[in-house]
């Protein structure tokens, strides 16, 4: 998020970059939101976190009530959140070290989408030890999980 964007955050026009406006437009009528990224240093890569910081601003993801400052969600049309990620660590390491990406989507963004929306977490751990069969099995799992919700 740039200085200009941060200054505009609480104004009437929080979206200043046309690229961000385009992303916000895409977000306006989706039902399924899928995030695909590698897990680096216990969380999502900076470019993905930047998408959260810059695109999910007031008027796109939520509105702040002018007097109470209460958050009013604007993404109620999203009914399914899916995170697909790969990690070098084992599942228990991801669990022990926090898994920031999982919380970012599954809990934080979860507040702004449909109240009964689901979050599906698909993580292929120990990616560097993964043989071809394991990767293929994961791909099949992803395909099954993604299509079964339609």
């Amino acid at each position, binding site marked *: *998020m740039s200085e200009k*964007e941060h200054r505009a955050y609480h104004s009437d026009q929080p979206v200043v970059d046309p690229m961000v406006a385009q992303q916000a437009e895409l977000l306006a009528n989706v039902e399924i939101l899928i995030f695909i990224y590698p897990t*680096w240093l216990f*969380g999502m890569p900076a470019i993905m*976190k930047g998408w*959260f910081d810059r695109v999910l601003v007031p008027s796109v993801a939520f509105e702040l009530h002018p007097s109470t400052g209460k958050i009013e969600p604007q993404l109620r049309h999203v009914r399914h959140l899916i995170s697909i990620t790969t990690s070098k660590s084992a599942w228990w390491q991801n669990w*022990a*070290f926090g898994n*920031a990406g999982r919380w970012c989507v599954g*809990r934080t963004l979860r507040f702004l989408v449909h109240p009964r929306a689901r979050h599906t977490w698909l993580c292929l751990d120990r990616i560097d030890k993964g043989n071809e069969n394991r990767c293929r099995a994961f791909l099949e799992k992803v395909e099954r999980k993604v299509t079964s919700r339609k």
Partner: protein
Amino acid sequence: MTQRHLGNHCLVVHAHPVSESFNTALRNSVVEGLLAAGNQVCSVDLYAEGFEPVLSDQEWTSQLGLPSTRPDLTKHVEHLRWCNHLVLIYPTWWSSTPAMLKGWFDQIWVNDALSTHPSATVNIPSRLDNVERLSVVTTHGSGLIRNYLQGFGGKRMILRGLRSLCSRQCRTDWIAMYHLDTSTLRQRTRFMKRVQSRLTP
């Protein structure tokens, strides 16, 4: 970069886009406090120096094999290896660090900072044994309950994840302010004093 002899080697990493923000004021007060307590302080302002948080295709490929050859990153790696007290100051956005700071983790806390012989097969690389204290100073727009429900992703990532890469005896501090958006000047001043007293007892 400001330095003074004696005391701890403190690296203060700050990520906030606006120079007259409360976050930047916090950084200034932390740096002053640490210097006054007789520490050596190195202050890094990621926004001010125009740090590039996005890892390019080429860098990612080289990261798996050889240490990065980008000269601007070498300086950051040296700072990280030099310090024994790391202080991170940032606003919490989306229950985690700003992308700018995450980019600093992604690019600096990798092979060349953590080990001289990187190997893609090592899950957790060798430690940054020099880092004996890890302090986080952060501000939240929302309240404690909401952040609790949101799972404290950033707190987990740093105090558990990055902590696991520091010295085994590494101490941690989590100094957080909530409801910044609706805070009064008195509350902010009090928080600033609290930060000072925690970091420089």
